C-alpha cells in the first residue's frame, strides 16, 4: 500500500476539517444545515480550478500520468494504491496529498497560485467518503421536459412563474407586486423594440381596459418592424458585424445587406433552426435563394487583413479559426478556441476535435489577404463580377511580386473601390469544388501541420451520424438536432438575458464545466424543450417571457429586499437594467421626434468629435459625417470602424466587434456622464424636444404642465411634486441666467444641425433645453426598469 499507516495527525486533521466546514454529522445549531456534496455543483468546479491544469484531459500537460476528471482513471491501481478509493478517504492517495504538509507530496504544489481552502479539502473528503460518484456535466445532458410545479397562490400567469415561485419561497422571499402600467409599457416597449413608447401608444394602453390589454400590446410590439431591429442589434455583437476590415488599414467594407437580412429574419419570425441553417450553410442548400446566400455573410464578418506583405496563409487560417470560435460560442456557449493549441483543459474537446470541427470552415474559396469586400462575394450586378475577379487575380499576383510595382497596387485598389462604390456586393460563404485537407496544427501554427483529420464534432456533446455528408449543412443540422444538449439552452438563456439583464445561466459565454450552474435548472430546460417543440419560435419565446408575472414585477426594492437578492438571481423583483448605448441614443432621438424610422440600408455617420478617425487611421481617414435625416437613424445603422469605434458608444460599453462577444459588461464611469451631458446628439435632442413641447406650452406661466409633458415623453410618467419643485427651480434659474446673457442662449442654439424655429424666443428655448437635458441624464432615463 502506498499510503503510510494512519497517523494521529491525519485522522485528527481529517475530523477537524469535516467539523470546521459543517459537513460532518454531529450536533449542529438550528441555523446550520448539513449540505451533501454534489459532484457537478461542488466537486467539478473545484477540480477544474485547482487540479485539471495538470491532471486533466490534455495529455501534453498531464503530470504523473494521472487524470482526475474520469472515474475509471482515478480508480486505477497504481501499484498497490489508487488516487481515489470510493468510500474510503483515508486510503485515497488524493486525500493524502491534499492534506500533506510535505512540500514534495503536497497537492496542489506549494508554488501553485491555486491552493485549497479547508472547506474545499473537506468537500473532497466528503465526496470520496460518499462514494466518489462522477456525473456528466449538466449542460452536456440533453434537456428533458420537467414537471411544472403547482402554484395555489394565483400569482402565476404561466409556467415560468411556477418555476420561479418555489425557490423564492424556499429562500423566504415573496414576489414583488406588479409594476404599474406606465412602468410596464416603458419596460416592454424598450425591451422588444429598443425604443420608448410614443405618447399615443401610452394613451391607448392606459385607456385599454380589456383584461388582455398588456398581451395585446406585446403582440403589437412583436409585430412592429422595430422588433427586428432590436433583435438584430444584439445578434450583431455575436456576429462581430462591422463596416471595416479590422486589421492594419481597417478598410471599409459592405456587409449591411447581411445586417438587413438579420432584421428581416427576426421580423418574419424565421424559426431559429432555419435562422441557424441559412447563416451557417445557406450556400449549400439546393438552389439557394439570394436571401439564403446573403445569410451566410454571418461567417464572413470576421476581420480580414489588408496589410501588404503578410503571408496570406497565416491569416486565412485565422479566419477559419475565428469561424470555429464564433460558431461554437454563439450556438453552444463553448470556447473551442482553447483546444487550438492543446486538448481543452476542462471541457471535453480534444485538439483533434477542434481541427475536425475546423474542417467544416476550411474550404472557403478565399485568400488570406483581402481588401474591403473580399472574395467570395454575392454580386447584385453580374457585370461587376468579371471586373472584380479580374482585379483580385491581379492583386494576388502583384502581392506576391510587390517589387517596384507599388503604383500599380494603388491603382488597382482605387479601381476596385471605384467599381464597388457603384455596384453592391456582400461577402458570403462559398466552398472550393474540392475541400481543402485539414491538419492538426502544432501549437496552432499555420505552418506546423501534423496529423490529417476528417470533418467531425466533439463526440461528448452529441455524436454525429456517420451517414451525413461532411459539410456545413450537416453541421448546422447537428446543432439544431433536438437531442443537442446546448443549442436550445444557450439560445433561450440569451433571450432570457435580453429581458432580465442576467441569464438563468449567468455566464452565457460559458456553458462548459467552468461556467456558472443555472439558477433555475428546471426552468431553463423547460424553456429549451418548449422552444424546440414550438418549432424554434423566437417571437413565441419572447411573448412567453414578457407576459409572465415574473417579468411584470415591480423592479424597485427596499434596501433590505435588495440585499437579500442583490443580483436578482432569484427573480424576486422585476428587471432594472442599464440600457445599451444604442438604446440610450435611440430613446433620445425618439422622444425628441428626431428619429428617422427608416429600416435598413447603408450605414450612416452621425455626429462624432473632430479628428477621431484622422488621428488614428491611415486609409480613408476622413469621417464624412452624414447630414439631414441620416443623422437621426437608429444606432444599429451607425458606421462601425473596428479600430476606432464611435466614442459616444464606446464609453457606454460598446464592444469593438473584433471577435464574437456574448456579454457586454456594464460599467458606470465619469466618461459616460460626459457623453450624456455634452455630446451634441443629446444636446440637440434636448433642444428639439424643448422646441416641440414649447409649441403646446408656450407660456412660462404654466411650467408645471410643460414639465409634466416632457417627463411623460422621456420617463413615461408624470413628475412627482418634489421633481416639479426641483425642475421648476432649474427652469427659473436658467431663464434668469439666459435673460441676463442672451448671447449664451444664442450659442446653445448652434448645437446640432436640425433647424431652429426662428419665431421662438431663444432665451426661453435655451432654458428649457437645459432642463430637458437634465431629464435625459437622470439615472431612471438610462435604465430600463
Amino acid at each position: 500500500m502506498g499510503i503510510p499507516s494512519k497517523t494521529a495527525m491525519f485522522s485528527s486533521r481529517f475530523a477537524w476539517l469535516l467539523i470546521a466546514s459543517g459537513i460532518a454529522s454531529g450536533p449542529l445549531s438550528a441555523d446550520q444545515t448539513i449540505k451533501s456534496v454534489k459532484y457537478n455543483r461542488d466537486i467539478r468546479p473545484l477540480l477544474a480550478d485547482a487540479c485539471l491544469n495538470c491532471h486533466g484531459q490534455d495529455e501534453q500537460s498531464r503530470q504523473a500520468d494521472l487524470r482526475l476528471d474520469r472515474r475509471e482513471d482515478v480508480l486505477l491501481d497504481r501499484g498497490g494504491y489508487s488516487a481515489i478509493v470510493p468510500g474510503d478517504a483515508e486510503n485515497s492517495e488524493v486525500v493524502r496529498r491534499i492534506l500533506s504538509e510535505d512540500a514534495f507530496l503536497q497537492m496542489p504544489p506549494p508554488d501553485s497560485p491555486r491552493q485549497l481552502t479547508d472547506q474545499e479539502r473537506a468537500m473532497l473528503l466528503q465526496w470520496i467518503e460518499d462514494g466518489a460518484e462522477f456525473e456528466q456535466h449538466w449542460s452536456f445532458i440533453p434537456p428533458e421536459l420537467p414537471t411544472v410545479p403547482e402554484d395555489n397562490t394565483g400569482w402565476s400567469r404561466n409556467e415560468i412563474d411556477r418555476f420561479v415561485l418555489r425557490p423564492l419561497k424556499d429562500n423566504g422571499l415573496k414576489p414583488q407586486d406588479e409594476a404599474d402600467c406606465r412602468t410596464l409599457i416603458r419596460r416592454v416597449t424598450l425591451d422588444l423594440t429598443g425604443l420608448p413608447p410614443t405618447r399615443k401608444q401610452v394613451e391607448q394602453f392606459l385607456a385599454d381596459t380589456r383584461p388582455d390589454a398588456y398581451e395585446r400590446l406585446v403582440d403589437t410590439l412583436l409585430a412592429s418592424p422595430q422588433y427586428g431591429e432590436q433583435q438584430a442589434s444584439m445578434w450583431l455583437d455575436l456576429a462581430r458585424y462591422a463596416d471595416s476590415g479590422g486589421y492594419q488599414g481597417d478598410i471599409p467594407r459592405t456587409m449591411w445587406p447581411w445586417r438587413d437580412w438579420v432584421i428581416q429574419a427576426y421580423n418574419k419570425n424565421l424559426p431559429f433552426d432555419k435562422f441557424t441553417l441559412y447563416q451557417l450553410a445557406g450556400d449549400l442548400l439546393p438552389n439557394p435563394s439570394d436571401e439564403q446566400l446573403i445569410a451566410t455573410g454571418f461567417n464572413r464578418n470576421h476581420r480580414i487583413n489588408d496589410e501588404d506583405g503578410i503571408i496570406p496563409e497565416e491569416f486565412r487560417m485565422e479566419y477559419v479559426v475565428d469561424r470555429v470560435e464564433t460558431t461554437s460560442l454563439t450556438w453552444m456557449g463553448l470556447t473551442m478556441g482553447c483546444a487550438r493549441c492543446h486538448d481543452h483543459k476542462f471541457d471535453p474537446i480534444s485538439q483533434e476535435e477542434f481541427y475536425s470541427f475546423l474542417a467544416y470552415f476550411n474550404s472557403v474559396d478565399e485568400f488570406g489577404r483581402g481588401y474591403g469586400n473580399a472574395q467570395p462575394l454575392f454580386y447584385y450586378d453580374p457585370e461587376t463580377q468579371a471586373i472584380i475577379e479580374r482585379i483580385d487575380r491581379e492583386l494576388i499576383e502583384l502581392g506576391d511580386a510587390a517589387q517596384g510595382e507599388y503604383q500599380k497596387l494603388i491603382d488597382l485598389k482605387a479601381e476596385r473601390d471605384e467599381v464597388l462604390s457603384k455596384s453592391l456586393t456582400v461577402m458570403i460563404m462559398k466552398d472550393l469544388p474540392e475541400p481543402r485537407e485539414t491538419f492538426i496544427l502544432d501549437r496552432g501554427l499555420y505552418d506546423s501541420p501534423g496529423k490529417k483529420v476528417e470533418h467531425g464534432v466533439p463526440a461528448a456533446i452529441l455524436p454525429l451520424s456517420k451517414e451525413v455528408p461532411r459539410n456545413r449543412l450537416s453541421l448546422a443540422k447537428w446543432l439544431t438536432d433536438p437531442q443537442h444538449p446546448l443549442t436550445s439552452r444557450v439560445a433561450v438563456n440569451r433571450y432570457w438575458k435580453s429581458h432580465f439583464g442576467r441569464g438563468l445561466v449567468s455566464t452565457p459565454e460559458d456553458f462548459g464545466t467552468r461556467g456558472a450552474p443555472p439558477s433555475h435548472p428546471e426552468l431553463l430546460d423547460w424553456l429549451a424543450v418548449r422552444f424546440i417543440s414550438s418549432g424554434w419560435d423566437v417571437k413565441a419565446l419572447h411573448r412567453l417571457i414578457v407576459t409572465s408575472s415574473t417579468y411584470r414585477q415591480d423592479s424597485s426594492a427596499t434596501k433590505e429586499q435588495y440585499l437579500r437578492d442583490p443580483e436578482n438571481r432569484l427573480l424576486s423583483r422585476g428587471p432594472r437594467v442599464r440600457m445599451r448605448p444604442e438604446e440610450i441614443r435611440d430613446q433620445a432621438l425618439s422622444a425628441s421626434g428626431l428619429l428617422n424610422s427608416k429600416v435598413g440600408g447603408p450605414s450612416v455617420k452621425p455626429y462624432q468629435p473632430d479628428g477621431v478617425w484622422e488621428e488614428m487611421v491611415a486609409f480613408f481617414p476622413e469621417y464624412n459625417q452624414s447630414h439631414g435625416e441620416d443623422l437621426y437613424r437608429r444606432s444599429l445603422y451607425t458606421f462601425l470602424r473596428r479600430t476606432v469605434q464611435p466614442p459616444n458608444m464606446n464609453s457606454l460599453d460598446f464592444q469593438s466587434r473584433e471577435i464574437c462577444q456574448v456579454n457586454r459588461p456594464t460599467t458606470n464611469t465619469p466618461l459616460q456622464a460626459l457623453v450624456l451631458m455634452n455630446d451634441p446628439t443629446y444636446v440637440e435632442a434636448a433642444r428639439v424636444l424643448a422646441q416641440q413641447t414649447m409649441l403646446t406650452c408656450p407660456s412660462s406661466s404654466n411650467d408645471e404642465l410643460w414639465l409634466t409633458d416632457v417627463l411623460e415623453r422621456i420617463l413615461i410618467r408624470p413628475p412627482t411634486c418634489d421633481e416639479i419643485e426641483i425642475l421648476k427651480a432649474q427652469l427659473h434659474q436658467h431663464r434668469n441666467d439666459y435673460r441676463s446673457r442672451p448671447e449664451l442662449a444664442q450659442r446653445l442654439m448652434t448645437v446640432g444641425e436640425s433647424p431652429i424655429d426662428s419665431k421662438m424666443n431663444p432665451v426661453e428655448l435655451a432654458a428649457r433645453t437645459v432642463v430637458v437635458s437634465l431629464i435625459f441624464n437622470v439615472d431612471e432615463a438610462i435604465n430600463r426598469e
Partner: protein
Amino acid sequence: MNPFATEIHKQSRRYFFGKSATGLGAAALGTLLKSETAHAAQGPHLPSTAKRVIYLFQSGAPSQMDLFDPKPDLENRRGDELPSSVRMGQRLTGMTAQQDRLCIAPSIYKFQRHGESGASVSELLPHTAQVADELCFIKSMHTDAINHDPAITFLMTGSQLPGRPSIGSWLSYGLGKEAENLPTFVVLSSKGSGRPNGQPLYQRLWGSGFIPSEHQGVRFGNTTEAVHYLSNPAGVDSHARHSWLNALRKMNEAKLEETYDPEIETRISQYEMAFRMQSSVPELTEIENEPQSTFDLYGEDAKQPGTFAANCLLARRMVERGVRYVQLFHRGWDQHVNLPKQLPGQCKDTDQASAALVLDLKQRGLLDDTIVIWGGEFGRTIYCQEALSATNYGRDHHPRCFTMWVAGGGFRPGLSYGATDDYCYNVTENPVSVHDFHATLLHALGIKHEHFTFRHQGRDYRLTDVHGRVVDDLLS
C-alpha cells in the same frame, strides 16, 4: 489567493456595493483596490519598485542596427548575400519573399560609446546618448509576429489576437486609481515626420478586452479637446452646469429613496467626478504655463500640441498628478525603403524629448518609481528591401531581434543586456521574449505575473498567457 480583488470584480459591482452597505461611491472602489493591493503585497506579491509607467511606443519598428546595435564589420560585406546559415529558414514577408537577393545593407550611421556604461548609441540620437547611463538597453528582444498589426497587438496585450486587455488595463484593474480626478490610463499619439500617414492606431491597443471597460485607456485627442465631450456645450457655462448637477443629484437621490440600487449612488458620484474632470483635465493640459526651462529641456516642439515632445511633457505632468499608465504612440517608424531619408526625421521627432523626460523625472524624484519604456514592435532586417546603393537602402520587418530601452522604476541603469550575431539577425545571448518583458515589467510593479489573473469564459487569463519569466538581471 486573490491578490487583486478578483472576487470583487467577478461579482457584480452592484453586489459588492450592496454587501458593503455603507453607501460607497465608485471613487471609493479605487481606494479599496489600493488597500487590497497593499494587503496583497504582504502576501504573495512583492514589494514594488515602481508605481507607474510611461511607455513611449515607437510604432512601425525602429531599425536597431541604425540606432543601438552597431555592426561595423558589416561594411566589408556590403552587398553580399545574407548567408543562409544566418537566416536559417526564417520566413520572409510578402514584400521581400520574391526578391532575387537579400543583400547586406550596413548602417551608414556612426556610433559612439557613451557615459560610464559605454553604451553604443547612433549619431541620430545625440540626446539619448547623453542619458545613456540612465537607460537599461535590452538588445535581445524577440517576438513571434512579422506584421505590424499582430506584432503591436502582441506587445500591447500579450496576444496577437484581439480581445485581450492591454497592459494599461491590467494595471488599472490591478493597481487601482491613484489620481482622483483623472483617468488611470491615458493614451497619447503623434505622427512621425518619416512617414506622416504610416502606422495607424487601433483602439484595441488600449482596450480592456474582457476586463470591464472602465479600465480601458482614455485617448487624449490632439486636434480638439483632450477628452471627448469634456467641455460643456456652447452656451452652458460652468456656473449653470454646477447648479444643473445639483438638481440632477437631487433627482437621483429621490430615485434612490424609492428604489434601492447602489448603481444610482455610483452614478451620482460619477457625475460629480465628471464635473471635477472638467477642470482637472484642462489644468493638466495647459502646458503653456510651463517655464521656458521646460521647453529648453524638451525642445521647442513641446509647445506644439500633438507632437511627440508635447506628449512627453504631458506624460510627465500626468504621472505627477497620479496617472498610473501613460501610453504614447509615435507613428512612422516603418522604413521599408528610403531609410536614410526617413529615419533622421523620426529620430529628431523623438530623441530630445525622450531623453528630457528621463532627466525631468529624475530631477523631480519621480524616476525611482516611474518606468519609462522606449521601443517598437519588432526589429528590421539587415538585408536591403529593394535596391541597395551607397546612400540609400530600406529594411523589412524582422521578428528575431530588436532593441528596447527602459529607464527608472527599478530597472538597472547603464546596463546593456543581451547580444545579437554579426548580422544583427539572431539573438546570441540572453534572449528576452515579449512575455518575458511583460513578466519583468509586472514584477517591477510588485505583481507576480503567474498570479495576476482574470477569469473569462472559464479560463484564468494572464497578461503573460502561459509563458514569461522575470528577467532578474534587468532589475537592480
